[in-house]
């Protein structure tokens, strides 16, 4: 967590053993999560993992079937959505089409019976905060997708909610706008110090903006930690596989030491029984070298700040490696690889 968010006035949020079923299908099976005031937590996971359900349960849009949700220590499970005092930004564009930008932003204040002049002032100030002060009189259909989501953000923030909920707000936007708005959301969140939950299926997005990331699968939180913790010390292969890219390599475990392609590496996370395992090796943990594991380059792609190359090391194994753009191996070229001595995540092979 950064210093600025520590100083924030946001609320604490606690999920305690929260259960939610959808017609017999378990969407949340005992989710427990604690979010500090001013913290930015991302809920990350594949579709159907329960991340959006968790967010909607917190907002009150879904009733939970068990457990409690505490905001500043008070259970809000029975509080209706319009009394929970949350700001929410939705995945689909949700601006009221019959209202101008500023009327949209004012809506929450109108519902709170804030006097007209104060309403207009606060709405204008919040629109300035998201950089759209000049578009106050436009209608939603006159705005681009990115602008609409900014207005939605302003609308969610203007009431000074206790918690800000972002339900994949960037997924409908194109890549460049997505990056800009992502950074903007983080800047504004830090500035306001508001406790924020951010749902996304995009691991890069989650790692880039969040103080902590909760990786979810099948209605459970598999691991929660800082982006560094998740990336460097995933508790299980699912997390290792979901967060960042990994090569799946057949290996042998013996007493917590995994032998991968002839290199002995310490095992990460929970202990595994001795025997054959599948090790997950990050592309940046494999290097080109003058000597080592021999292989043939299959393909190589330029990714801006680095290059990613596929190297065939045996009939059934192609390793993805990451290296400097200065080196550009040609397809068909013979190369040698070495594994860096980082601990690896592994799961028993069946």
């Amino acid at each position, binding site marked *: 967590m950064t210093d600025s968010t520590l100083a924030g006035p946001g609320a604490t949020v606690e999920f305690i053993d929260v259960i939610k079923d959808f017609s017999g299908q378990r969407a949340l099976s005992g989710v427990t999560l604690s979010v500090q005031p001013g913290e930015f937590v991302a809920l990350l996971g594949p579709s159907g993992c329960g991340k959006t359900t968790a967010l909607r349960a917190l907002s009150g849009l879904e009733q939970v079937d068990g457990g409690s949700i505490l905001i500043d220590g008070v259970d809000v499970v029975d509080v209706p959505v319009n009394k929970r005092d949350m700001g929410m930004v939705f995945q689909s564009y949700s601006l009221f*089409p019959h209202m101008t930008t500023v009327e949209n932003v004012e809506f929450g204040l109108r519902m709170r019976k804030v006097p007209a002049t104060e309403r207009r002032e606060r709405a204008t100030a919040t629109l300035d905060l998201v950089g759209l002060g000049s578009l106050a009189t436009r209608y939603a259909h006159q705005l681009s997708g990115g602008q609409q989501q900014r207005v939605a953000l302003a609308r969610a923030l203007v009431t000074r909610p206790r918690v800000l909920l972002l339900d994949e707000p960037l997924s409908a936007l194109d890549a460049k706008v997505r990056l800009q708005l992502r950074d903007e959301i983080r800047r504004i969140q830090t500035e306001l110090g508001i406790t924020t939950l951010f749902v996304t299926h995009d691991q890069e997005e989650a790692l880039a903006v969040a103080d902590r990331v909760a990786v979810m699968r099948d209605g459970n939180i598999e691991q929660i930690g800082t982006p560094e913790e998740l990336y460097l010390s995933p508790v299980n292969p699912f997390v290792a596989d979901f967060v960042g890219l990994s090569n799946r390599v057949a290996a042998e475990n013996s007493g917590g030491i995994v032998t991968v392609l002839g290199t002995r590496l310490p095992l990460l996370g929970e202990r595994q029984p001795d025997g054959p395992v599948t090790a997950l090796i990050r592309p940046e943990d494999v290097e080109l070298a003058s000597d080592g594991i021999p292989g043939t380059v299959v393909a190589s792609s330029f990714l801006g700040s680095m290059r990613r190359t596929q190297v065939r090391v045996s009939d059934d194994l192609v390793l993805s490696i990451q290296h400097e753009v200065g080196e550009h191996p040609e397809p068909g070229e013979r190369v040698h690889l070495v594994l860096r001595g980082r601990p690896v995540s592994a799961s028993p092979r069946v």
Partner: protein
Amino acid sequence: MSEVAVRIGAKPGRITSRAILGGIGLVFAIPIIAMIEFTFRAGLGGGYTLDHWTVLLDPEQNDKYAQLFTAVRNSLVLAVVTVAIVLLILLPTMILVHLQFPKLRRVLEFICIIPITVPAIVLVVGLAPVYGVVVRVFGSSVWTLALAYGITVLPYAYRSIQANISTVDMITLSEAARSLGAGWGNVMWRILLPNLRRGILAASLISVAVVLGEYTIASLLNRSNLQTALVQVSKSDPYVAVIFALLALGLVLLLLLLIGRVGSTKPGRRLS
């Protein structure tokens, strides 16, 4: 637009399209022009007169046409009550089903479409005993006929509202409004109704048009409305009957134009 036309390759030329429009226009215009011409005829002897129109404004003749004026009033009352049924029963039901009971959407659609498949005369056979009860409960006031009309306009009203509902993401809009502190009343009044305005207006106007043109049910249930009165009057004074038919036609045309106007203004359309 042009892209679609190119793809289909069937956009008619300007002359062809005007010829088609003109042809269709004539098909509609000739009977109407004939009706108008008829109302000015002096009689079998030939010649033209304004008498058939002026007689309607003559206070001395009022009694003669009182039945017709009452019938117009009845039809207007029926139109209002029918629209009220659509707005107070059908609309909230549709919104509720859309937001809370999506599984019932098909059922509701099916129920609302049924009346179009049942001939009016069959409907009356079923309604006759029902009206025995209605009369005992509500009396035989004019407006009670609107209970039947509420059923006959269902398919049209349902379609108009549904067409609007499917262009608005009501679920997200209502969730957004609720998360901003709005109760259900405010969600309905400030968010949903303004965005369903076009569908609501179209449903209301088309209901009025259907009610003003309804004859079978009123006639078979022995009620008096504009159409039954027209048939009645035409037996003694065909000129006045045709004049009223023309006026009714004009009113319906006006309503349809209004629907068109309302439908073509799209404040809520999105770019992408």
